[in-house]
């Protein structure tokens, strides 16, 4: 897996933004990416030193679709979230949401 495949997108939410003060940045990562792969990918893409990687598997939500007459439900895909802690003093510019467009 190449770095760009490991890191799918930066996760930019109110909650993830609050981590940036502690050098913590959140990403949506490949379902089968390991912490080591994530560490290497972040280091490669953002040229930073990664101290720690925490991951969590996020279960997709169940969604109901109600149309007239029929009622169907579906699942949102499961995904993996990674929270990466950088070396103090380093940072990642998350301003550009489309960071993987070069």
């Amino acid at each position: 897996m190449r770095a760009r495949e490991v890191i799918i997108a930066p996760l930019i939410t109110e909650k993830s933004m609050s981590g940036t003060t502690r050098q913590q940045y959140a990403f949506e990562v490949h379902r089968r990416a390991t912490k080591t792969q994530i560490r290497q990918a972040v280091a490669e893409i953002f040229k930073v030193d990664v101290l720690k990687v925490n991951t969590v598997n996020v279960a997709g939500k169940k969604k109901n679709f109600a149309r007239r007459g029929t009622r169907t439900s579906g699942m949102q895909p499961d995904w993996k979230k990674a929270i990466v802690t950088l070396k103090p003093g380093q940072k990642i510019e998350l301003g550009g949401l489309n960071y993987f467009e070069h």
Partner: protein
Amino acid sequence: MSASTVKHLDPTQVELEISISRDELDAARERAFKQLVRNAKIPGFRPGKAPRKVFEAQYGSEVISERAMDALVPDVYMRAIRENDLEPVDQPQMELLPDEEGQPLRLRATVNVRPEIGLHDYKGIELTGPSAAVADDEVERSLEALRRDSATLVPVDRAVEFGDVATLDYEGRIDGVPFEGGKAENQSTEIAQGRFIPGFTEGIVGIRAGETKEIEVTFPADYSNKDLAAKNAVFSVTVQDVKVPEYPALDDEFAKRFNPEADLAGLRGDLRTRLESAAKSRARRALSTVLVDRLLAKHEFPLPSVMVERESESIYQEAQAYVARAGLKWADYLEQQNRTDDSVRAEYRAEAERRVKTTLLLEAIAKAEKIEATEADLESEITSLSRQYGQPRQAIVEMLRPNLASLIDGIVRSKTLDFLLDQAKIIELPAGTEATKTAPA
């Protein structure tokens, strides 16, 4: 902080160059962002909680800049106007000068302003005008008019005489053919000279109630209806009844009809007061006109052309509306008056110049004399309007709310005129001096 420089393009137009510092601009942008983010929907954030960078990535920083300028520009403009002591008469033309990195942002505003007016000798102007005094015979005349209006009609059984009130049916024919407007029934009319075309009234005199008579008349050559002018007509007139107006005696009893508390002397007093106040306002109007003419002649200053044009256009529109209401086409009206659109416009323009000049001059005097509309002035104006239109005060206040500024201007203007008239040396011309006592008939 913003700074501004003024350049007079001509006496009634200025060009303002306003520079806005980067700090001020940034502060304005931050304020704009705070406003915008409140309603921005950004996934992952509650409304109003997104950081500026995230917001800009989604909506672009131009949105913030635009909003910031919308708020900032009027603000710095107003400040520049105040700092430079300018009085604009219309909305400015704004232009953003090319942006240079690191340099303050510069704005150019071109606006028409009130010219500087050098006031001189507006106090103690000598005026001659009619006296506001009311002569005794005027009071008697209006008393007599009151008496006439309170006449009761008493039917009599005799032929019509001058001064009677008769009820008539009539139909007029020209060459045996009825014409339009020549027919009426049950028309109650006072038999007096000059009411109808010559010969008609005279013809009626002598008819008894219930009788019918043919009256031959000739329409005057200058009769308003051209189809009838100078034609011979025969009116067949039937007198239904004859009444004599009976006038009440001039006594205290009569006075009580108008004011239960008053006797005849009191009624005379009331009439005098009413006539005096009418005469006073008439005199004041006449004097104001003369006064304004004098002031206009004394002062020369350039007029903002926008104001003149606006005024002239509004006079033109009013004239057209007036003609339209009279049921005429504008082109026909011009032809009738033997004028062209251009000549009419030129005339309106001259009038507009006069009005604008008057307004500016009076406002300048008001400013110099610190004449202002007080709360009490406003109150009394509203009270008098409320009485005039017979509407409750609240309704008047609601109606005036959008035009409050012009109401205040009106009050100031009228107070300024009062002030000038007070200051003026007024030489009264005797009016209504012939004191012929008209004996009640």
